[in-house]
């Protein structure tokens, strides 16, 4: 695939790795924000190939991991209702709520469907006028334009039996919250490349200045990740803290103007609770007044939600990079990918799930 395969070239990867080894003279801890980047790092074994002095702290950029428990419970309640077709991205299907997940709801008779795009859910609404179609609108700024467009279309085409359960979260407030934490160890950020494709890079220089951390916009292929790391280390070694763009083929400073206009129209900023981290002010989006009629939380007055987070689960500390997954007492015992207590163990790029696999290999080899 053009623009993709070239960025996995192992010979160029070796050059980048050599360079990283060259320029690293002391320990540094940097955070890759996006779950997709975590996935790529684990998938290609990149963290094993870096110099020992470099630590990658896996960030909370996994919308699956940070969707508040209350919203998951609401989703489950809505999905269980007769007459509802509940549509979701595949990622959310196994995320545990207080007592169930979407898979269980499906096996109990709920009409739960996996779709690739929110527009597919809108089509289902058109094809099934006698059913209520609800789409689980999670994601960061990368996914929000798709969800926004779907609601915009629903309004424009007069599709009444469609609604969106919104749980959008924003990256810059999360970066700030992480840096504000007194136990923060992060010295540099690999910013989420595709979030910046949409939003541009203008929100980050103030953060770099305020917290004196280099922020390097990074892509997802192996060469992109290595380059992001390389540029971050160079800044750290040189004592600089600037915004740099290591993903120029997909990211410009202004981002996507049309998308940002739509986002402004359909959504408005709101306080958002991040599962495992807590309330981060002004860190999420909800539907604006103009589109409130499509808000699934309003349409399905779901009361009687008693959220019950596992007391053992320390996802939040993992998401902030404060502990490593294997430092949690439940890791590998009460909490495994088979029986996850929190989202970081169930998500394909959750740090706990990734560590579970590696830990087993190390245990077996020792």
């Amino acid at each position, binding site marked *: *695939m053009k623009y*993709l395969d070239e960025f*996995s070239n*192992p010979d160029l*990867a*070796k050059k980048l*790795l050599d360079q990283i080894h060259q320029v690293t003279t002391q320990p540094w801890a940097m955070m890759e924000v996006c*779950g*997709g980047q975590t*996935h790529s790092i*684990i*998938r*290609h*074994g*990149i*963290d*094993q*190939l870096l110099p020992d002095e470099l630590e990658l702290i896996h960030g909370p950029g*996994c*919308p*699956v991991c940070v969707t508040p428990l209350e919203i998951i419970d609401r989703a489950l309640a809505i999905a269980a209702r007769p007459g509802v077709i509940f*549509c979701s*991205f*595949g*990622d959310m*299907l*196994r995320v545990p709520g207080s007592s169930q997940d979407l*898979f*269980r709801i*499906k*096996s*109990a008779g709920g009409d739960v*469907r*996996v*779709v*690739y795009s929110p527009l*597919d859910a809108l089509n*289902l609404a058109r094809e099934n006028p006698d059913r209520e179609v609800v789409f689980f609108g999670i*994601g960061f700024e990368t*996914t929000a334009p798709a969800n926004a467009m779907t609601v915009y279309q629903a309004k424009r085409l007069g599709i009444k039996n469609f609604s969106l359960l919104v749980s959008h979260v924003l990256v810059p407030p999360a970066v700030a919250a992480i840096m504000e934490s007194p136990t923060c160890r992060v010295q540099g950020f690999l910013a989420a490349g595709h979030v910046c494709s949409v939003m541009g890079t203008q929100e980050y220089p103030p953060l770099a200045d305020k917290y004196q951390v280099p922020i390097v916009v990074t892509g997802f292929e*192996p060469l992109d990740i290595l380059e992001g790391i390389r540029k971050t280390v160079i800044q750290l070694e040189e004592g600089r803290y600037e915004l740099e763009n290591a993903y120029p083929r997909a990211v410009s400073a202004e981002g996507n103007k049309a998308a940002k206009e739509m986002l402004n129209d359909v959504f408005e900023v709101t306080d958002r609770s991040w599962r495992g981290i807590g309330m981060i002010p002004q860190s999420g989006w909800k539907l604006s007044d103009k589109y409130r009629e499509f808000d699934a939380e309003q349409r399905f007055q779901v009361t009687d939600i008693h959220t019950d987070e596992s007391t053992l689960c320390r996802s939040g500390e993992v998401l902030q990079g404060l502990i490593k997954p294997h430092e949690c007492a439940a890791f590998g015992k009460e909490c495994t*990918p*088979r*029986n996850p207590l929190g989202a970081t163990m169930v*998500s*394909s*790029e959750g740090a706990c799930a990734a560590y579970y*696999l*590696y830990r*087993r*290999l190390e245990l*077996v*080899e020792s």
Partner: protein
Amino acid sequence: MAQPAGEAGDLDFDAWVCPAPLRDSPTIVMGHGGGGALSAELIEHLFLPAFGEAADAQLGDSAIVEIGGTRLAFSTDSYVVKPLFFPGGSIGDLAVNGTVNDIAMSGASPLVLSTAFIIEEGTELAELGRVAEALGAAARKAGIKLVTGDTKVVDSGNGDGVFVNTAGIGVLADGVDIRPERASPGDVVIVSGEIGVHGVAVMSCREGLEFGTTVRSDSAPLHGLVADMVATGADIHALRDPTRGGVAASLNEIAKASKVGVTLVERSLPIPQTVRDACGLLGLDPLYVANEGKLLAILPADDADRVLEAMHAHEYGWDACIIGSCIDAHPGMVVAQTGLGGTRVVDLPLGEQLPRIC
């Protein structure tokens, strides 16, 4: 293992020794049919204990039964694929080739098949006719006979159209001993051709995911290929057709059965670009995608050349290649060497692989 139960309904969940495998779900979920860890546990912790002493289940794709001095291979499989027709094949092809292959994976020659249909009321006769045509054509191509069958109709809404079960019997020649427990350190892992093809073909027409692709299912009967491989005289240790759960599931099963470690070299995996692209689009890993006309062979390194030669001369093995090996380290685990030189564990899939956005 768990205590065998006396009667149905007597299952004592608390008495199970293994930590909480099924207790997390009181009902069946789709993952239980995925061919991965959940399926395995359903068999190990629900069916086998219930069957008690009546169960003599073997781990391979087919069971070897000795009757009057002749060894027979016996296998059954149910086909529930949706949609019924997909690029390159149909449920009819799968129903024949799937069971033929299960028998072939023990090195046996498949002879006869039964076909049992469960059909949803309201299914169009023309559609059922097309399925039957496809099944008949596949049987003729494979050279096997359809000797008995059954037909049932269920209420509309319960059948997804058409389900087919086929059970097959084959004959195992003397001296052939191909079982998942026989993999040994030093063996090579050979795959007969490109992987990920069938799963992508089916997914491309699944509702909610439709995408255009030239990928066509690779469903094919492999017993002829296996016969050629066995005829070289090589000491083939294990054969497996990587269907649900893909190459990852099959190699994990063999690794656990034989208590060996398996290493894979990612760069040597034959994955067509179209499969890579489709998997890239949906966020799937080709190692976990189903194949229907491919096999994995585990055999001593010294035998590799002559087996590969025989495979290359066959229409279903022309691009066979070595993708890894069996080792002493990390027994029961499959570890892949990534393109960059790192390593990653290739775990047994839990259930169905789902498209992701992250």
